[in-house]
Structures are given as structure tokens and as C-alpha cells.
């Protein structure tokens, strides 16, 4: 069994209550950090641990913290990004539902480090039942003296709030999240300034993903050295992966970074192989925004090396033959999947979720969706395929926030790797009339598929 830093006790009965959580060693990191470590020591520890942001971008957490303007006389804030809305990603939900105190413990240690006296958990509105779980846990933590005035008798005080969003993916973008938290329309801000300088209420703010924050107590407890013993190079520690799609065992798994993708898909410890004995066709490895890869390229890189679950190995080959680890939303597709239909679904999502502020994303996402809808339903033209590539290219890099890129990458990569399938839709409109067209008769492109 591999190391579990986050989910070790997830199956302990009543681990969501503070007493059981403490019996299992919970809140030791708060004791250790507040009583024996200075904020600078903790920042160094997190830096040495090589923990990287688990929200998608993989930015080194310690480095992000060190950018925070801690000399400013303004209040400082820590905001936990629990908006988790990327299609294919559902790990934060699992973590918060099962281990609310782990997140709270991480919030306390991180807030202490950053000098925040108030911290927020911004959670997606659809997770209303988790709001209640968190609020109950927060109440317990206040009662036990881990939150509120003079935590554990030290002179550090912290208030922690849970704030549900109203159902917008864009509010997961950190600056849109801050706008929304301030009670405004969730439009992303122009950067710079970055939140570390002017974030919530124009005060220095750090925004971190749930999993990033929940990883901090482990680092404090076992030290940075031990933490980055797990993993490979700059991909240290463990990562939660939300595995979904055509596999035998979908679910949330904690893996050690560095695990070969092939093992993740086929071993019984994780996904348990492709369902119904079918062949693997493609994987979207890090949430809907990252480039899709055909089976052969997800198992081995273009150089012929085994692809590993690390930030670096996933990106090997750039956007030509690689992808990204992203948020760890691992979507597996078998041979019966229609890539065009899948892409249309994603495009529909981005069209629906664009905030509409900037013209390339507002107009381009809708355009791509409509063209994809036509192609998938047998009304496409051959030049629509290049049109899609062109529209995607014109959105990418020209927008205020990365949602534009996130909408463009899946389109560009699906056409790059599966162009014949788009052409097939145009050439044989009759054959794609049935929405389940590849279920009866898979689109054959043997070379790219891998047998289960």
C-alpha cells in the first residue's frame, strides 16, 4: 500500500467528530505550529516540502505564501477555494465530507503562518450539505479552543467562516472568488495586482485549494524532509485523484506522486481496469480543461517513457503530445466513447460558465459550442474543423482569466489527436444520428487504443 497523508483515517467511524479526529492524532499540527514554530519557520518548511497547489495550476505553495505582504498594516486573509466545479473533479468534496477537521486544522496552521485573523472557506453552493458538516466541525473546534480568541492559550486568535457560492464555475477562479466573497458579481479581476498584494477587500490575501491546505498539517507533523521523500523531484507528496468514467472502480484515490499512469488505470488498488473488458480510448487526466490524450500517449510519452502521475511527466511533450496533472480529475473513456460528443459536452459547459466579461471568451465559447453541436448531430462541414481550431487559437491567451484557455485547450487537443473522428461525423451524417453511435460500432483506430 502506498503512503496516505490525507486519507489515512478516512474510514475510521465518526472521524468527522473532533474527539475521534483527535484520538487519531488530529490537531497535533496546531499545537506544534502555534507553540513551537514561527511563521517564517513554517513558510520555510512548506517551501522545502515542495508542496504545490492542488487546485490545478500547481504553483508552489510555500513560494505563494512568501509573496504575501506580511509587513502591510492592513488585515491579511486566508481564503480556501472549495468551489470545486471543474467537470471530473470531486476530490475536495470527499475530503471535506469525510475529514472536515483536517481542513480546519490546515486552515488554522496556514492562517497563523500568514498572520490572518479571519479566514474563509468559499464553497460551491451545490455542496450545501457539506456547509453543514463544516459548520458543525467549526463549532466543535471553537468549543475545544482551536478557533476564536487566544488559541490554545497563545496570543494568536482566528475566526473561520464558511461562505457558500451561488453556483458559478467562474467563482473558482481566485479573483472572481474574492469578488463574490465581497458580495459582488463574480467577474475575474485584471491582474496584476495579485491577491498576495491586493486581494479580499484590497488587503493581502492568499487563496489556496482545499487539498493544498489539508496537506499542511502533515508537513508540520512529519517535517518537510519526510513529506518530500514521497514523490519524484518537484512533484512531492501525495495527491488526490478523482477517477471517473469507464473504469471498474471510479472514486477518489490518494496516490503517491510518481505512480505510473498505467498502474493507476489497471491496478486493483485504484481504477481496476477498463469496464466491460473494453479497450481504453482516451483520458482527460486533470479535469475537463486539460488536453485530452489518446490511450497510447497517456500510457507512454512520445519519447517512449512510461508516463507518470507527476506534474512534469504529465506535461512531457507540451501540448503536442502531453497534457497536465491539473486538479486530478481523471476521466477515462473506453472505445465506445464519441470524442466529438464528449467535446461538445465540455464546450457546452464552458459556454454556460463564461462570465462574459471579455469578448474572446464570451463570444468564442458559444461559437465553438454551436459548431460542435452541428458536427455531432451530422450537420457539419469539413471546414468547420479548421474553423474550430482557429477560434480556439484566437481565444487562447487573449482573455482576462484562464477560463478562456480552459475552453480552448480541449478543442485544440481533441482535434489534434482525433481529427479523423470529426471528419467521420461530417462524411457520414447518417451514421451519427443515433446519439450512441460508437457504442454499437466503435470508431476503429486500433493504433491509438490499448487493450485492457
Amino acid at each position: 500500500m502506498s503512503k496516505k497523508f490525507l486519507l489515512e483515517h478516512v474510514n475510521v467511524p465518526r472521524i468527522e467528530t473532533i474527539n475521534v479526529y483527535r484520538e487519531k492524532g488530529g490537531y497535533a499540527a496546531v499545537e506544534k505550529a502555534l507553540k513551537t514554530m514561527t511563521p517564517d519557520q513554517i513558510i520555510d518548511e512548506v517551501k522545502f516540502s515542495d508542496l504545490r497547489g492542488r487546485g490545478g495550476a500547481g504553483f508552489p505553495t510555500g513560494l505563494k505564501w512568501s509573496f504575501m505582504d506580511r509587513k502591510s498594516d492592513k488585515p491579511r486573509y486566508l481564503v480556501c477555494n472549495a468551489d470545486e466545479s471543474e467537470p471530473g473533479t470531486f476530490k475536495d468534496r470527499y475530503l471535506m465530507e469525510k475529514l472536515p477537521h483536517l481542513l480546519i486544522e490546515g486552515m488554522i496552521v496556514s492562517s497563523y503562518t500568514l498572520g490572518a485573523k479571519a479566514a474563509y472557506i468559499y464553497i460551491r453552493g451545490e455542496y450545501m450539505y457539506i456547509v453543514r458538516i463544516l459548520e458543525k466541525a467549526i463549532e466543535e473546534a471553537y468549543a475545544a479552543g482551536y478557533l476564536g480568541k487566544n488559541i490554545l492559550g497563545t496570543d494568536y486568535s482566528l475566526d473561520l467562516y464558511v461562505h457558500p457560492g451561488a453556483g458559478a464555475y467562474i467563482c473558482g477562479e481566485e479573483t472572481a472568488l474574492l469578488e463574490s466573497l465581497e458580495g459582488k458579481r463574480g467577474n475575474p479581476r485584471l491582474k496584476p495586482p495579485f491577491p498576495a498584494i491586493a486581494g479580499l477587500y484590497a488587503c493581502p490575501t492568499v487563496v489556496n485549494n482545499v487539498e493544498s491546505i489539508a496537506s499542511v498539517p502533515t508537513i508540520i507533523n512529519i517535517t518537510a524532509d519526510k513529506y518530500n521523500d514521497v514523490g519524484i523531484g518537484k512533484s512531492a507528496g501525495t495527491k488526490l485523484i478523482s477517477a471517473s468514467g469507464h473504469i471498474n472502480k471510479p472514486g477518489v484515490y490518494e496516490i503517491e506522486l510518481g505512480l505510473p499512469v498505467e498502474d493507476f488505470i489497471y491496478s486493483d488498488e485504484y481504477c481496476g481496469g477498463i469496464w466491460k473488458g473494453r479497450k481504453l480510448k482516451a483520458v482527460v487526466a486533470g479535469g475537463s480543461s486539460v488536453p485530452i490524450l489518446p490511450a497510447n500517449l497517456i500510457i507512454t510519452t512520445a519519447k517512449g517513457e512510461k508516463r507518470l502521475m507527476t506534474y512534469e511527466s504529465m506535461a512531457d511533450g507540451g501540448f503536442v503530445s502531453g497534457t497536465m496533472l491539473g486538479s486530478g480529475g481523471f476521466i477515462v473513456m473506453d472505445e465506445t466513447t464519441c470524442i466529438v460528443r464528449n467535446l461538445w459536452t465540455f464546450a457546452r459547459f464552458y459556454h454556460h460558465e463564461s462570465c462574459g466579461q471579455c469578448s474572446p471568451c464570451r463570444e468564442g465559447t458559444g461559437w465553438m459550442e454551436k459548431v460542435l453541436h452541428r458536427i455531432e448531430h451530422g450537420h457539419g462541414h469539413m471546414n468547420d474543423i479548421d474553423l474550430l481550431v482557429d477560434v480556439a487559437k484566437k481565444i487562447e491567451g487573449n482573455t482576462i482569466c484562464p477560463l478562456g484557455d480552459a475552453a480552448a485547450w480541449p478543442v485544440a487537443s481533441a482535434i489534434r489527436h482525433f481529427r479523423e473522428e470529426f471528419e467521420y461525423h461530417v462524411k457520414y451524417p447518417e451514421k451519427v444520428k443515433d446519439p450512441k453511435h460508437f457504442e454499437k460500432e466503435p470508431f476503429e483506430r486500433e493504433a491509438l487504443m490499448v487493450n485492457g
Partner: protein
Amino acid sequence: MAKVTIDGATIEVPDGTTILNAARQIGGESVPPAMCYYSTLKESGGKCRVCLVKVAQGSTKDPRPMPKLMASCRTPVMDGMVVQSITSPEVLEARKSVVEFLLINHPLDCPICDQAGECDLQNLAYKHGVAKTRYEEERRTFEKIDIGDKIKLHMNRCILCYRCTFVANQLTDNRVHGVLSRGDASEISTYIQKAVDNDFSGNMIDVCPVGALTDKTFRFKSRVWFTNPMDGHRNCPKCSGKVVLWTKGNDVLRVSARTDQYNEVKEFICNECRFEHKNMNDWTIDGPRHIDRDSVIAQNHYERTDLQKLKLEIDRQIEFEKGKQLPEPNPSLTA
């Protein structure tokens, strides 16, 4: 102070100046177009993306180029920054893309739009757009609504520059309209119809770059290029009283605030000046209005063109109809 070079021309500007404003100080063709930025409205800009430029060198201290094209209207210059505007094919390509995006859902009802002739999008499209559309889907549509008793909103034409919301935020004491919904379903709207009722609300009409917000008192009265614009003023206790009178014979068809060469109002006017004084006798005339840059109105002064040039222009259009790439327009006919 910071020294910045834009398309080879160098200028020194105070710290904090944006690339766009530095370029405006230099002037000429390198000035990026702007659809959402408005110099007299704080926080405006950054949205339409038509002003994108390439920063080839960040600053003297950190000479690395910036990885993406930057919105010149919101990016401050740094000492030693080197910017490419029309000298970068990438920038020209991006501008053209943005124009295309702005047009796909735009109704192109210019023949019946009051803004035609003084529309920033029309000018921009003429300069950077392509004459053919690749968009064959249905355009999104909204109902026309009255957002105040003097203002008509044609949401179909809106490009979501947000300028009118900044006017309401910054010029009036209570904003009652805003952006509802998101993505391409976003719309400018009031919660209650005709809710906009404020002494300075009329300025929303002037800041609107397209024909989304138009003056109901001027609706369908005349094409602007058939009017005679004159600068005029009156003693107004509420505003500067400096306006443009759009006249035909002795009739004042419309009153608007004065704009600069970038079509931006520097001194906003009150609704009384705008809507209540449609009589020549209410005004002291300062002289004819100079309409610069781009505007179709400026072309009101028809000149006899030489037939040779006209033939070239006609040939150009014919080539295009045959499906060839449109060659560059004949400069003598479009300047």
C-alpha cells in the same frame, strides 16, 4: 518617470501611465483602438481585448518579454519597456480576432441604427475586420427595452464594455442598472423597467461605443451625417453646459456632450442640457464642431474624387466578390 518605446517611438511619461495613454501621447497609427476603456471612467477597460499589444521587453530592470499579449489600456508602463502595436503581426491578428468576435452576435442593423456614422464598432470593423463572416449560427437576441424615459436599450447591439455601469456608479448617486446573467446571455438591464431616472443618466448614451443605448428624443430623426454639429454652451448650474448641438436648419435634433479625438467625453453633461433644451435660443453657439478621426461624419465633406481612383476601388470590390482575399483599401478613399 518612465521611458517607453512604442513601435520605435520613445516617450517619457509619469509612472503609472498605461501603455494606451502613452501611445495616445505619441499619437498616430500606433495608438491601439479601445472599445471598453474610457479615460474619464475609473476602473474601465480590460474587457473588450481590442487594445492588446505585445510587450517585447518588460523593463530595463527585467527585460523579459511578457508571455501573453497585454491589454494596453490597463497595463502600466515600466521604465525601459518596449511595446509593439502595429509592428507586431501577432497583435494585428489578435485585433482582427477580437473584431470578429465582437461582430458574430452583433445585429449589423447599421442601416436602421441611430449610432451609424458615429459608432466605434463600425469604424473598428471597417479598419480591422474582414468583409465576410464565418459565423453561420443564429445570433443571440434580446427584446428592446426602455431603461429610462429618455433611454432605449437595444441589448442586441451591446458589446458589454460596462462603461454605462461605471457612469451610473461614478456620476450618479444610485446605480439601478447592471449586468444580469453571465456569458453571452449577459445583459445590461434594470430590475424594473424605466428605472433609470437621474440627472446624469444621459451620459450613458454618450459613453456607449455602439448603438445599444440611444437617445429616445433623437430616435429615427436623422442620420447623423445629415446633421450639422455645432459647439454650444449655456449657463448651467448643474454641469459645465458645454455641449454639441446636432442641428438641421434651425432645429436642434440632439444634444450631446463634447468628445475628444478618441470619442471620449471629458466633461459630462446633465440631463436638463441634454433633453430639455432643444431650442437654438437656449444656446450660445461657439462655432462648428470639428469631427476628427475615423468618423463617417467627417466624410460629410464630400470631395470630387478622381475617376481613376474610383475605378480601382470598384475593381477591388469585384475581386472580393469573386472570392479573393480583399486587397488593402484604397487609402485615398478611406482616410
